[in-house]
């Protein structure tokens, strides 16, 4: 799966949204009221499951949740 598709998938699942509501430009942080610190835990867990990796707390900051595209870039960096 491409990084952008995976980013859309984990956001759609964890925020209970439809895939067609999301594009690379869609803002996450500050845009969806249901996005909170618990959702971050959920999203990171989903990425870990999908990529079979472990993401350290140190790697997580709010900048990777600015937009779906930013999250895709983070996922891309973990795919290498």
């Amino acid at each position, binding site marked *: 799966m491409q990084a952008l598709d995976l980013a859309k998938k984990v956001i759609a699942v964890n925020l209970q949204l439809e895939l067609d509501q999301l594009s690379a430009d*869609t803002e996450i*942080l*500050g*845009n*969806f009221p*249901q996005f*909170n*610190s618990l959702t971050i835990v959920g999203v990171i867990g989903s990425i870990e499951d999908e990529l079979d990796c472990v993401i350290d707390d140190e790697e997580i*900051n*709010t900048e990777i949740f600015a937009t779906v595209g930013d999250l895709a870039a983070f996922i891309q960096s973990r795919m290498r």
Partner: protein
Amino acid sequence: MRVQRVRLLHELVYAMAQESPDAPALLHKQESLTFAQLASEVQRFSKSLCGLGLGANERVAIYLPKQFEVVIGVFGAAAAGGVAVPINPMLKAQQVSHILRDCNVRVLITSPSRAKQLLEILPNCHDLKFLVLTGAADELPQVTGLTALSWQVAMQAPGQKPPGRIDSDMAAILYTSGSTGLPKGVVLSHLNMVAAADSSSEFLRLSASDRLLAVLPLSFDYGLSQLTTAYYVGASVVLMDYLLPKEVVAAVVRYAVTGISAVPPIWNQLSVLDWPDEAGKSLRYIHHLGRAARRSTLDRLRSKLPLP
């Protein structure tokens, strides 16, 4: 110490714009506003609201994450003779609907994307006439009886002079969290808010050189008080939506924050972090509020925080 006697909520900003126009008032990410700039935006927005036909005591709700428009919206609503209703940006459509209906909100300030997420509930908000959007208004589907316009268009409108206010007039309605049922609106007068700012700035011994990190939601009483308390003495405020505790520590260093007010769950999280010595260069006090602090949290904070 205040030179002028402030009696109205928006005068907190106007008075500082007179006293120290070039002092920083508000910071968010890479941007900042001086008191003169903030006062000018507040004044312009208040005239725009009156130009839209906002009547005295009518409600203006703000449903946004922390950004300049929330602060301009709150003070601008009060300056327009209206009543500011800051809505917690974490509330979902049905909860927002309750507030918009319960206190007869006339104007709602939000983002185009958030407005879209509210499309189902907007037609049932009987008193709502205007949406002021932080982005373009043309992508939003038409809702009967509702006019949507962008912040920019609203700000460029010729506007009208706001009506006069006295300190017993309504300034804001803040909603409780609703843990025991539907959220209830608490009505605050201009005097209530200015008196709280006076008291709070006194017990925190704030001065114009202080810089507060506003981590509490502005929809919460002490959250809004972070702004009024700072502006009572001409201190500056850094806006931050609390999400990851480590970003609080980073913000203290980045913005040279001197004080933080927060509730027990936040301090519990902050107390287990490593606080670098750098944070101690600026940090002067921490303020624990809401309910009693956990002993273990206080002990940890005392040993870890680089306070003077």
